[in-house]
């Protein structure tokens, strides 16, 4: 047990060094599907954060009872319960948003981030570490979603969260809010992250 990271390390790692989207390539479905605007992206990040936190805490509490071959089923059932809660709450208080997000809220159940965190962290560590890990990963996921959503919404509509940011003369790049724009933006941003990373490692090793 001594080799496992402490709660604080778990928290910090989730935000940038082990960012779920840019570093681990997890949870790509919502990353691409709901990032055509800032508001749906934020709602999605909050929903995933809530489910991840609850699932991590519950799994961590029952970790001594888990049987290896039934593990994944227990994970998905726990997650499905909380996703149902999120889905009902969204439908009750934010009806329009729940229509916009549509099937992507129930698809949180099969979001690899949550299953991966349950497997890697919650099923092995204490509640504190699991909760810290969940919060860190959620912030990392939220940052990634927001970064893509900002680029797509500004270039695609000239607006950000409903406010005009680019001059009216801006020809809206409609392709950016359509499916291909998601792939292109994400690909370019990932290349940017890799590039910055390469420069930083070069500096650290004293070659740059």
């Amino acid at each position: 047990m001594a080799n496992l990271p402490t709660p604080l390390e778990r928290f910090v790692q989730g935000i940038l060094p082990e960012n779920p989207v840019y570093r681990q390539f997890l949870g790509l479905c919502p990353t691409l599907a709901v990032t055509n605007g800032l508001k749906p992206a934020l709602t999605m990040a909050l929903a995933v954060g809530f489910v991840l936190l609850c699932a991590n805490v519950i799994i961590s509490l029952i970790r001594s009872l888990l049987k290896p071959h039934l593990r994944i089923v227990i994970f998905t059932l726990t997650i499905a319960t909380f996703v149902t809660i999120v889905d009902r709450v969204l439908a009750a208080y934010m009806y329009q948003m729940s229509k916009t997000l549509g099937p992507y809220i129930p698809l949180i159940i099969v979001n690899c981030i949550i299953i991966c965190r349950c497997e890697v962290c919650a099923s092995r560590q204490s509640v504190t570490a699991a909760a810290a890990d969940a919060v860190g990963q959620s912030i990392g996921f939220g940052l990634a979603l927001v970064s893509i959503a900002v680029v797509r919404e500004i270039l695609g509509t000239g607006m950000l969260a409903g406010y005009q940011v680019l001059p009216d003369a801006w020809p809206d790049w409609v392709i950016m809010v359509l499916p291909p724009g998601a792939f292109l933006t994400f690909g370019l941003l990932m290349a940017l992250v890799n590039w910055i990373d390469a420069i930083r490692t070069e500096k650290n090793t004293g070659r740059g």
Partner: protein
Amino acid sequence: MDYLFDIMLISITAALINNFVLYYFVGICPFIGVSRQVGMAVGMGSAVTFVMTVAVFLSWTITTLILVPGAPLSSWVAGFFMPAQKAATMDLTILTYIVYIFSIASSVQFVEMYVRRFYPSLYKTFGVFLPLITTNCAILFACLTVMSNIVGVESPEQAWDLGRALALGIFGGVGFTIAIVIMAGIREELDLCDVPRAFKGTAITLIVGGILAMAFMGFTGVDSGIRTAVMGTP
């Protein structure tokens, strides 16, 4: 004629126009992860098609018999515990997600055991992918689409029957296979190209995916075109 036509439209829409991967972004993880070689991509695609058909069949049966308001099986069981009027409007749709994911997970487990026991050669082709498929968004997405066409419709006559649901399952899987095989073909060629260092790996795959999605946008409107051609009127 109308029914066959409906099935045809559902199939074309699921496979090409609203391709699961390139339009709805479901099943991206295997699309990026398992698309290095054409052979593997074909294996993954056929496994997904197979499981999706089974899962859609299960979810259609469960939804129609148990989950929708006033479903036969649940109201029959509820009739033992509560007044008949209340039992007839038994609504279990809130359990949908839990029931679906449980039925997908267990059916994948059974299919894997069955295939390994009775068709070892088939198991070699796509057996290794089966456990991964439990957490494939595309399968759950197909089930949810079927559900929204049973529960979400205005009148019971508009609800999908089993044939329509199966068409969606099979051709949704075919669409996934088409996308992942094209992707694998392109990536095999990409290995020989000089890709900028920052783009190596996932980044260039996503860009290629974007260009593929643009190509598939060309199918937009094909369904209404077919409708005009067959029905005579737009």
